[in-house]
């Protein structure tokens, strides 16, 4: 379709274009440079990123010329040096025949992202653009760039939603749930209170997220959703369904 992002078209058509920093719900960012393709105009080719290119009728694109493959290989070598602990990067690179890197590997002791971060910025962007929390940001610039909370301190604005970990392409972000606490290991050990289910007593959602959701819910639903864990909610719904079938009470939630 005219105006669609080329990378999305490629994904739909099962044309393999490697990418690390693209997420459909966010603005195109163009940082990982892996999705570079060659656009052919009047016999001349020009390299550009598939995640920023909008398609139009008659667009001619080459996705795996020797030139592109050569650059992708070098980029993978750079990624292998930057995130030497990432198995996902290793797997992606292997598909291009890249199994080792000629570059000096980046070794950071006590790296909160475990030597897996490739600074694609997805976590920063979802936290900012989707969740509106802006709990994490880029720190420093150039080769010294890292992602973390301001001043590497626990950040009270973090809701503990975990969207950052969900979108991370290299699974670098570590979150640990211990009873009533969620610990954002990668984000300066920011701690978030979890709430207990009023039915079974088990801890489930992070409190700030539940509150955030409440602001967007029908007041009638808040009581039931806020305090009951998904498992118990399922049971409640099932019970109500059965009762309704028997004609005892009205509708379910």
């Amino acid at each position, binding site marked *: 379709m005219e105006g669609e992002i080329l990378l999305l078209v490629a994904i739909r058509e099962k044309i393999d274009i490697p990418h690390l920093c693209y997420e459909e719900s966010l603005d195109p*960012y163009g940082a990982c440079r892996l999705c570079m393709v060659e656009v052919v105009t009047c016999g001349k080719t020009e390299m550009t990123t598939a995640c920023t290119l909008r398609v139009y009728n008659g667009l001619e694109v080459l996705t795996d010329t020797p030139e592109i493959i050569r650059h992708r290989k070098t980029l993978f070598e*750079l990624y292998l040096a930057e995130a030497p602990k990432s198995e996902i990067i290793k797997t992606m690179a292997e598909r291009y025949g890249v199994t080792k890197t000629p570059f000096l590997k980046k070794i950071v002791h006590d790296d909160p992202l475990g030597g897996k971060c490739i600074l694609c910025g997805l976590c920063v962007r979802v936290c900012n653009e989707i969740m509106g929390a802006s709990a994490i940001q880029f720190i420093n610039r150039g080769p*010294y760039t890292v992602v973390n909370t301001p001043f590497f301190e626990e950040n009270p604005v973090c809701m503990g939603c975990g969207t950052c970990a969900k979108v991370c392409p290299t699974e670098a972000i570590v979150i640990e749930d211990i009873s009533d606490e969620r610990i954002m290991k990668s984000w300066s050990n920011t701690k978030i209170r979890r709430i207990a289910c009023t039915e079974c007593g088990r801890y489930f959602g992070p409190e700030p997220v539940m509150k955030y959701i409440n602001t967007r819910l029908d007041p009638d639903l808040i009581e039931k959703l806020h305090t009951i864990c998904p498992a118990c909610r399922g049971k409640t719904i099932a019970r109500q369904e059965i009762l309704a079938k028997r004609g005892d009470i009205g509708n379910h939630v």
Partner: protein
Amino acid sequence: MGGSMRIKSRSDLEEVRTIGLSKIQPDRPRIAIGLSTCGIAVGGENLFNRLYTLIKEGGYDIALTKVGCIGYCKEEPIVAVTIPKKPLILLHRVFPENAEEVINAVLKGEVPESLALCRILEWDHITGILQYGEGFDTIPLYNDVPFFLHQTKVILRDAGFINPEDIDEYIAVGGYEAAYTTLTERDPDAVIDEVKQSGLRGRGGAGFPAGLKWEITKKAKGTDKYIVCNADEGDPGAYMNRNEMESDPHMLVEGMLIGAYAMGISEGLIYIRAEYPLAIKRLRHAIDQAREYGLLGDNIFGTSFCFDIQLATGAGAFVCGESTALVASIEGKTGRPHPRPPRLTDSGVWGRPTDLNNVETWCNVPVIIAKGSKWYSGIGNSSNTGTKVFSLVGKVENVGMVEVPLGTSLHRIIFDIGSGGAGGKAVKAVQTGGPSGGCIPVRLFDTGVDFENLNRIGSMMGSGGLVVMDEDTNMVDIARYFINFAASESCGKCVPCREGLKHILLILNKIISGKALAQDLILLASLSDTIQKTSLCGLGQTAVNPVQTTLKYFMNEYEAFISQEKR
């Protein structure tokens, strides 16, 4: 003239012109010190203070003032002395201890000949000609000075002659005349046509036709558009824009005013780096003065046109000179580039169509309007019209600000104007275009300096820095210097620039420490290529130019670092 004077007619402008002329050519001696950053750096301010004290204590009838930099930075502090009915005399290397000598001579209607650099009988300000008197025949003429002889002063026409902190003096030499004619008599589209006809190309480095960009911005959908001046000059060794703003700030204001009228835009911004405090001060002052005279603000020249300029200062990031990063910085965000399109002309500052031009591009506008596109396109060659200001620095004899027509050969600039290597050493190469440019070996010095020629030999125009290297300079070390700069100024967004430049630097360090193998040179070349082809913005794409050109032209110097047994 009262502070509330607003210029509404040609006769108002004439009135100010008369006042201004009486300041530039008063009926008493005038001593003007070149006080741009370069002049201040070599003690110009001390000289000014010493002269001020002497004149005050002696109660002498001498006008003491400051002017911008005439460009001959090597000979600073430069003092311009005007004695009624005598030629304008430039004194050079004047220090506080010479102050009494200067005053005593001037009081006798003379100048200290031992300090004299040259005399000027008549000066073409392009927008007007000033005649000086006769005399002092033993002092060389302006054109007898090799540094000046081959230059063509168009943008620097007023630099060193007028007080940059006094709008009256700018108006005295024909300033704001072009803006007046434009706003009161000309059709906006005709102004754009004039700029297109002139062939003016963006002086920020890319060389995009300025008139075309104006037209695109004007036609872009949207309201409340912006025009922006890029004054984030950050190349090491480049200070053309600084000098232009410090020496003649009204030239920039007038250029933007004409552009705003042509595009029908009422808001202007100057994005200037915070490291230029004097330029910021003088620009603010110039903008205030222009507002006072009704040349900025509402109903300019009494017409219905409204336009004003605000300043936005940077926070010390080289990458903010890149257009999209610059916009992010103006909006208060981190200065990181984003992919284009959308281009600024569609979505720039606060998402509105924005026209962004370099300081020097704007500075060309008043003369194009004043003298016409035909006159302007007669300078330079067919596809590279006009002049370009270069800062000639490094290991060259005559360090300074050089303005020549585009297409002038490097040989002319470096040997004829610059007098070759400092201290008589042999010149080996020149780096053009700052950290994003390349090193051009002396055997290619016949190359005419224009946008296409420089690209063809692996370098670029950039904003106009020329760093000269002599026989003692190691080219691998030069490459390392520029890569170190680019790597630490990378914003860190895309991987080739952030990681790639870091590894280039590591490889160069390895080479210089003598630990590299021949294969490291191959790795260096292939990594450079990937960085150039895959980086997100201009910084990364061009940052490897110093490496690529030194590999191409000075391979022997790389090989010398690789020991025989390792080859």
